[in-house]
């Protein structure tokens, strides 16, 4: 299953964003951020204690099941006064959750997390980015491994000179995409597709901001 991968913002940044806002309501989410331990119940509780120690009045907290679902607003409406009393909502979800809530309630929303990438859980507690949603998928020729995402430079014709023992030049803990692609294509007997020169990529897949509508009759 794909997950929104997040990381807690530095305490100083959260403090700056909440400057002048004495009363804060904190919202977590029961889906991705619970799994990544960045915005589940324990993290919301810890944030509540931290803000209280810094002199903020925490008017209440909640952990909604799926923050990016449009039904989240119904839960917040049911909570009523603790939400209404708050000067700001400190939201410990990914940016999808923050924006979903921000569009539906007339309150200042402050993200407590940075959204890093949309990732796949590849093992217990391990998450990897496997797709950048570029709109011009090339993995039919790369053994099903995306070089646009898995290569730090998004190269489509093979490795750069920084590849080292199958690892990336920026981080020895990250695999070199082109070593992985070479190994996969080699196993499949399809190295010819790696030998084929790839033209410069089409960056016009879906001009940002992406928008999609199901055609109606």
């Amino acid at each position: 299953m794909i997950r929104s991968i997040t990381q807690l913002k530095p305490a100083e940044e959260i403090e700056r964003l909440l400057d002048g806002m004495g009363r804060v309501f904190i919202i977590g989410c029961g889906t991705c951020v619970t799994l990544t331990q960045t915005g589940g119940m324990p993290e919301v509780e810890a944030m509540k204690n931290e803000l209280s120690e810094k002199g903020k009045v925490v008017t209440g907290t909640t952990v909604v099941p799926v923050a990016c679902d449009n039904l989240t607003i119904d839960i917040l409406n049911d909570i009523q006064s603790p939400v209404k009393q708050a000067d700001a909502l400190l939201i410990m979800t990914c940016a999808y959750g923050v924006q979903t809530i921000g569009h539906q309630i007339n309150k200042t929303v402050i993200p407590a997390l940075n959204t890093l990438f949309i990732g796949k859980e590849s093992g217990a507690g391990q998450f990897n980015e496997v797709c950048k949603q570029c709109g011009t998928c090339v993995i039919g020729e790369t053994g099903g491994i995306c070089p646009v995402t898995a290569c730090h430079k998004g190269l489509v014709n093979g490795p750069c000179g920084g590849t080292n023992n199958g690892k990336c030049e920026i981080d020895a803990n990250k695999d070199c995409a082109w070593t992985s692609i070479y190994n996969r294509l080699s196993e499949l007997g399809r190295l010819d597709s790696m030998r084929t020169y790839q033209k410069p990529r089409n960056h016009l897949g879906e001009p940002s901001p992406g928008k999609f509508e199901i055609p109606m009759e």
Partner: protein
Amino acid sequence: MPSAFKKALDSGKFIVTCEAAPGKGTNLENMKHHIELLKDKVDAMNVTDHQSSVMRFPSLGGAILVKEMGGEPILQMTCRDRNRMALQADLLFASSRGVNNVLCLTGDSVMLGDHKEAKPVFDLDSSQLVAAVRTMEKGKDMAGNELDGGVRFCAGAIVTPEANPIEPQLIKFEKKLEAGSEFIQTQAVYDMDNFKTFMEYARQFPVKILAGIILLTSAPMARFMNKNVAGVTVPHGLIDEMASAPKGGALKKGIEIAGRMVRQIKEENICDGVHIMAIGKEEKVVDIMEAAGLL
């Protein structure tokens, strides 16, 4: 008309290239000193493009300076900082100012340099940049539009003969040749037996290969490269030789080793020439060439 460097490549003589590295700022005195010292001794000088992703005076400005001073520049162009529009525009500018040699590189990660938060570009890769040069020489830009006034370049690329694993690297190398590379400068090589094995493979292609020679300045510097520079392996024997130098004599020993390697490459006709990288000690290129018996 072919560039002077292209003519030298085609002449069959043993080629020597070196580097002229622009500094950070508008004080070009150090670079001018190196150009003055080397321009008549080497076949061409590579002008580096924000080497190691550290922001500096631009390679195109440096290449024009080499040209103005009577040298033969090789413009290094990375794909790190410019998209295909900016790269093509700079190629037009280079051509208009008589800079007619280009080395096409992907470029180091932005994260490895001094502007770590900058946006990396990598719109093209090195093989695509070589192909773009060839497209422009046919009078069209990459979008297929006519150019009013064309370009002519001697275009090259690089290879890392000691990369591990080597196979993916060689596939990329062959793509760079298919795209139209006329010369290849290699990452530093120190183990001549390994390099000969690479050359046995590379000789099948009609391309000129210049072996990369990085001047060793001390035993710790050699160990540092082994640990931190991808695709560079300094054999233990050479590190011991560096360590055996008397106090204060390490640089002299490094020059002796580099000169010896250049001499061996030339005498045994291992490849077509050398690309000497003295990284910050460019004036020592003269000493290396003397040690190799080239001057």
